[in-house]
């Protein structure tokens, strides 16, 4: 119990530091009507378990290339390390249950991809956010 408590305290201390150091923001196309999403829904979407928007349109997932923001996103939303996420998608690919999402090299290309595709969803460094895409709040 003691150990668990100390772990919780550790994470509580750790999180604000990280968020201060580097953070991401979830983005969609401006045509997308959604304003906010559940964390669990986001997780489902990024693990390929949920592939349709509520209006029936398919979801195109866009990932950011390896880097601090991707790592934070993977830990924070998917509870996985980036490597685990890669393996996860390889498994999905091997068993034929899913196709790994596209991984774009930088924030700029991600913003471009989301801005150009009404069905897309992605994330970018919070500092690189601009009005070309729409920010989604996390509940």
């Amino acid at each position, binding site marked *: 119990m003691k150990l668990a408590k100390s772990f919780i305290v550790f994470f509580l201390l750790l999180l604000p530091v990280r968020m201060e150091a580097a953070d991401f923001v979830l983005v969609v196309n401006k045509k997308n009507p959604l304003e906010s999403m559940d964390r669990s829904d986001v997780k489902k979407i990024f693990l390929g378990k949920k592939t349709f928007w509520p209006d029936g349109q398919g979801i195109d997932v866009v990932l950011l290339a390896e880097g601090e923001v991707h790592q934070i996103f993977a830990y924070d939303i998917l509870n996985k390390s980036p490597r685990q996420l890669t393996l996860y998608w390889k498994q999905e690919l*091997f*068993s*034929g249950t899913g196709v790994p999402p596209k991984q774009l090299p930088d924030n700029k290309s991600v913003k471009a991809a989301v801005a150009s595709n009404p069905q897309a969803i992605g994330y970018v460094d919070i500092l690189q956010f601009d009005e070309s895409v729409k920010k989604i709040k996390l509940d």
Partner: protein
Amino acid sequence: MRLINTIRKKVWFCVNVAFLGFIVATGFALYSNYQQQIHLTHIRDFDFHLAMRSNELLNLFVIQKNYYKESFLFGSSDSASRGNALCEKIRTDIEAIIKIKRSLHRLPVDRVESLGLLQKKYHEYVEQATELYPLLAQGNDPEDYIEALQLLAAAQTEIQNDLEYFSGFYRQHFSNNVTTLMRMTNRNSAVLAVFFVLLLVTMSLVVNWAAKRTLITPLTHIKEAVRAFGRGQRSFPALEDMNDKDDIGELGVAIRTMTKDLVNSTVSKAYVDSVFHNMNDSLIVTSNNFLICSVNRATLDLLGYKDDELIGHHVNKVLSEFFCGGAESEGDDIDAELAFQLCSNAEKIFLTRDGYEIPMLLSVSLLNDGENAAQGLVYVAKDITERKKAEQKLEQMALYDFLTGLPNRMTFNDRLEQTLKQAHRKGQQAGLMFLDLDRFKEINDTMGHDSGDALLQNVAKWLSSCVRESDTVARLGGDEFAVILANLYEPQDVVNTAERILAAFVEPVIYEGKEIFSSLSIGIALYPLDARNSVDLLKNADMAMYQAKQNGGNNYSFFSGKINPRLTGSSNSPSELSEVVKM
């Protein structure tokens, strides 16, 4: 049944029936086991193999898939080649299963076809997989092969599903067959149990029937026949139809023959009892100590007893003058004591219940059965009352006159002798009268012999009434009588007697309405005065009678040789002759 004639064969028959039952039961059990064996063999050779092989195939496929997965996820070429190495094995297994299935004609063909389809699918899958996965393992970007990978994954899933289906199906099939076999085994067990029980009952009934028919019934007949024989029965219908070719039948026939022989050669108790009870002579059987054991009916009738009044009592209850033997000493010599009782045709007296004496001719013999000591005595007695009477009659006839009942001449001589001897011994006198009827011949001739006899009987009566008890009146023959007067005090007594006699003759004898008058002449001789012996005395009395007849009859006369002076002339006065016959 005719053939089964010895006890050995009968027992073997029963044993063989039981054995036959055992063989049949064993046969059924063997057949049942054989059926199960066929099923088990089938299950082992086909169902079990199919289940095992299909399961193994599934496992191999999964292993192969995992090798490929490993190689894909971690870029391990080693795993990819291991996966490739399993291809051949999996192909062989599929072929083996198809071969087994083909040999099973009873399975539906479509399953074999779907197996062929699976084989084809796997073949295509393997062709691509063996190329693609090693390639990816070597570090090629999977992005370039996404389409191929997806096809492969789809084929993989399809094949795995198929394999799982087959594996499950065959496992189920195996399980079902085993369950069926178990059910069949249970059913067989139940059927066999029922069959065994029925067989046991049938065999028991057959053995029981055979034993009863061939052993027990004949033996029972024999047993009952022997018991009946003991009770006295002499014919045994149950034994009549016995067959002497048969062991037990032979026994029955032997018993039948034996009883017939016994009937012919020995007497039955009933026969002895019949003889015992129906014999006219009296028969008494006693024990060693003279207690009556049995008496026959003749004895009971004769003595007026009931049998329980005699049985157990001492024999002296009926036998008077019973004497114990000389052996007084504590019966240490029973045989001697018994022997003392033995007799043959002895005259003994039996006592009746009412105390009468019955003369019996008794024979006593020992009761023994051969070598053993005597067990008692047998008294055989004949009632001789009638014979005794006859003997007395004969004696009467020899010593007494038939017509008058008076002593005859022989008796007279004897009495005279006795009287004279007594008189001599005591120094007494005795007198003898010799009497003769006057003109008896005349009466006899004119009136008939019956009248004469009646007259003589009357004379005898008169004479007897005229003398003392101690005197003897005798008929010497014809119309001659004599009177012995014993113990005579004085001669006057003789005179008185003579005159009494003569006076008695005054009365006539009435016979058939006719009066017969008679008289007689009396001659008197005295002892020891007139003679010293009987012959002389009689002769002298005769002479005196003759003298009286000379004097005209109806008179008495003393012997004249030595006439007593006192009597001389006083007695010779002749009486008037009475009329002999008065019509």
